[in-house]
């Protein structure tokens, strides 16, 4: 009894202290359970979740870039149509210039990076508000998209390598572990769980060596079990339907890279310092200008990636591709806990935010809810997430 009471007390305390950190995971979990019930389990089916994650891809990569843009107290509205425009450029390069995917993808990514630098130019040099500079970009890329698709209308992409990016799955091993399940995906899931547990234990031991506060042992175990289960479940569900998609692999790689940069590198620390207090950062020898260019260039490059994912998913470039992507990405970042005051927010949160956002759409679609109500629900979720974030942050500071 005593140990049980202790466990509950620890649980309450841990959740209370880290409510902000875990809040999004819990929200996502709750949303998934609700939809699973209301759709008689269709929502949680392997096929639907696999589709859902593939649909999240092009918003998720934008949300990752947008997170950093918002962290340094800016905004980039141009990325939706930039993604649409660059998707069309990719389609034209494949279809009319007969360039192979291996050339087109890097080319488009570089163009995206350059477009980002262009948006940053008036922001960094003349202190023009990024809202205005990127709104100009929004208009320009919208026009550019219509211009390049004017003669042809929708451009069908026939390159199968390119189309696999948005529709294909990773190949399987020639062995079968469990009939009907994708072996390599299961294996990767197991490896991920192992790596996660190993790195968590190592980091906890390191903190203990410095006498830092760590989670109580039972809570730590609970956290390991919870997240391992999540990873395992995800791998299991994916393995039940064709395995990991290439889109998912790309998103995971992007998240891993950005998570690493933001948490482990000098560049990442400088980005957060500029967001937290630009004047102090400048006086500490950090060039705020340089950071602005880098963050916008990364945003542009991720917009290009988003455009590639979208065009590939549709196997075509359309005249309206990219419409409202920027607002979806911004909403995902805010749901994921980024703060407009600057210096706060992380890419994992934004990915979860994107998943929450797309889950809502997908679940409500399955339930046959009218699109008008869907917008209203999404709006309410956004405002609820931000209110939750602001109030827990305030409490966190007071305590």
């Amino acid at each position: 009894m005593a140990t049980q009471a202790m466990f509950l007390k620890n649980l309450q305390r841990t959740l209370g202290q880290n409510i902000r950190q875990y809040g999004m995971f819990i929200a996502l979990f709750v949303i998934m359970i609700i939809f699973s019930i209301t759709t008689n389990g269709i929502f949680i089916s392997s096929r639907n979740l696999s589709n859902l994650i593939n649909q999240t891809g092009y918003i998720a990569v934008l949300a990752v870039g947008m997170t950093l843009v918002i962290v340094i107290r800016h905004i980039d509205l141009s990325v939706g149509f930039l993604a649409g425009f660059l998707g069309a450029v990719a389609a034209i390069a494949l279809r009319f210039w007969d360039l192979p995917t291996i050339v087109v993808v890097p080319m488009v990514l570089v163009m995206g990076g350059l477009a980002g630098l262009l948006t940053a130019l008036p922001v960094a040099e003349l202190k023009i508000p990024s809202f205005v500079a990127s709104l100009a970009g929004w208009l320009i890329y919208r026009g550019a998209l219509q211009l390049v698709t004017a003669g042809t209308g929708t451009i069908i992409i026939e390159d199968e390598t390119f189309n696999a990016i948005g529709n294909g799955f990773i190949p399987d091993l020639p062995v079968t572990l469990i009939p009907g399940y994708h072996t390599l995906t299961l294996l990767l899931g197991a490896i991920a769980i192992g790596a996660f547990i190993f790195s968590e234990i190592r980091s906890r031991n390191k903190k203990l060596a410095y006498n830092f506060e760590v989670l109580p042992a039972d809570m730590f175990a609970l956290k390991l079990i919870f997240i391992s289960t999540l990873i395992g479940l995800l791998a299991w569900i994916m393995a039940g339907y064709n395995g990991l998609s290439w889109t998912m692999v790309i998103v995971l790689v992007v998240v891993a890279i950005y998570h690493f940069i933001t948490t482990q590198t000098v560049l990442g620390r400088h980005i957060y310092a500029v967001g937290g207090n630009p004047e102090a950062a400048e006086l500490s020898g950090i060039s705020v200008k340089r950071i602005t260019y880098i963050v916008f260039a990364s945003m542009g490059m991720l917009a290009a990636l988003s455009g590639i994912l979208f065009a590939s998913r549709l196997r075509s470039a359309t005249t309206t591709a990219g419409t409202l992507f920027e607002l979806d990405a911004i909403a995902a970042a805010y749901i994921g806990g980024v703060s407009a005051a600057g210096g706060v927010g992380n890419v994992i949160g934004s990915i979860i935010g994107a998943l929450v956002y797309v889950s809502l759409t997908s679940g409500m679609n399955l339930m046959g809810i009218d699109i008008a109500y869907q917008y209203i629900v999404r709006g309410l979720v956004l405002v609820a997430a931000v209110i939750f974030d602001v109030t827990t942050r305030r409490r966190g500071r007071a305590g």
Partner: protein
Amino acid sequence: METPILEMRQITKEFPGVRALDNVTFSVKRGEIHCLVGENGAGKSTLMKVLSGVYPYGTYSGEILIDGQPQRFSGIADSERAGIGIIYQELALVPEMTVYENIFLGHEINRNGLIDWNETIHRADAMLRKVRLTVNPATKVRDLGVGKQQLVEIAKVLSRNVKILILDEPTAALNEDDSENLLNLLRELRDHGVTCILISHKLKEVLSIADTVTVLRDGKTVCTLDAHKGEVSEQALIRNMVGREITNIYPPRSHRPGADPMLALRNWTVYAPELGRYILRDVNIEVRRGEIVGLAGLMGAGRTELALSMFGNAPGYRISGELWLKGKQRWFRHPQEAIAAGMAYVSEDRKAKGLVLIQDVRQNITLANLRALARNGIIDRNAEIQVAEEYRRSLNIKTPTIEQQVVNLSGGNQQKVCLGKWLFVRPDVLILDEPTRGIDVGAKYEIYQLMNRLVEDGMSILMISSELPEVLGMSDRVYVVSGGRIKGELPIEVASQEKIMELAVDY
């Protein structure tokens, strides 16, 4: 005897940990120009904020009487109604609006919410004549010089039937001609029955214009002097402004400054095109190895601008002159270059310019020199923790862990985090801008000890400070700045509070 137009009796105002005003009594006669003088932090601005209702009734103790009637202001609107008009150092005009819109801002002449523009312009014209400003009232304030903006501000206040006009350092940003105009205007207003309270650092100005002078020091009224009885003189004012006891709160020093100059400025001149005036002019200073040099002066003298312009952070300024660092002539376009060359600057405003408040102690300490902890751009977390722990120990930063957000630390500990950050760049020349502002006595003493230790190890320190006892207690040599110029250099043996103040108020 006639009732004074304004009386403030036994005013006491406390902030957490500080008694800003201590039993202050202040009495102003009808139709006089009454100057309020004192060092930075003596309590002048706080007293005026009490009077104007910025600190409402109940947040201070004491009495305010206007024309013998007790007043209880709960906000600025109340004090305005009672006839008090105040003009702050930072002008409160909307640059994008016209002169007449600004004059009647918040008190628009209207009928049922519709503004009567003709009447507005007509009356604005009359107000402008009163302050002897000949501009078209339809001019945008943005297009006027600072001196004319000041006059618009006065017209704005006068349009509200003020009995008592308060001006806080009105000439601080003005050139000589504009200052003279303003003082003449004040004399004229006085002759038309407006009572003026003038806060000023410029003693010459005070001597030429004051009917009465009240001196504040450390939140207390020191004396009130009557100019017409010949009580006001420069010596009398300076003596009363400084005369603070220097208690022995400075650690003993054993260091001996070297002879070779580490930092030197030659004819350093900084011009601000936007303001149309010089911030600094022909500054020549030198800091030697192992020396603490004090840079004294009043607020607005150009001390912080001097530091920032050396440090490569002077956006929009035009700089000429030479900067010599460790025997080489240098020129820094960005703080990054200054840091790389061996300089460090600890800002006077640790919250706005020193710290990233939402980050923790560790992240703040390593911010300016992360590259030293990184290989291929990847931070070595263990090395970082060790560095942060090392500075926490050596500077005695009181925090539960180095993972504590600095926003939760006390002022003294925040300042130590700032110092830690700059010591970690291992500078040869350290510029400290008001290093002990707003921190408790214990932390002050620790910072003084640290400064002595650093110069013993061969570092050179340039210390900007408004606290004269601190300047005298810590420096080996003192420069005094006033109006953007070095007014004098004093070896510590001959420096005294009076001598420094004499130079600091010399415009």
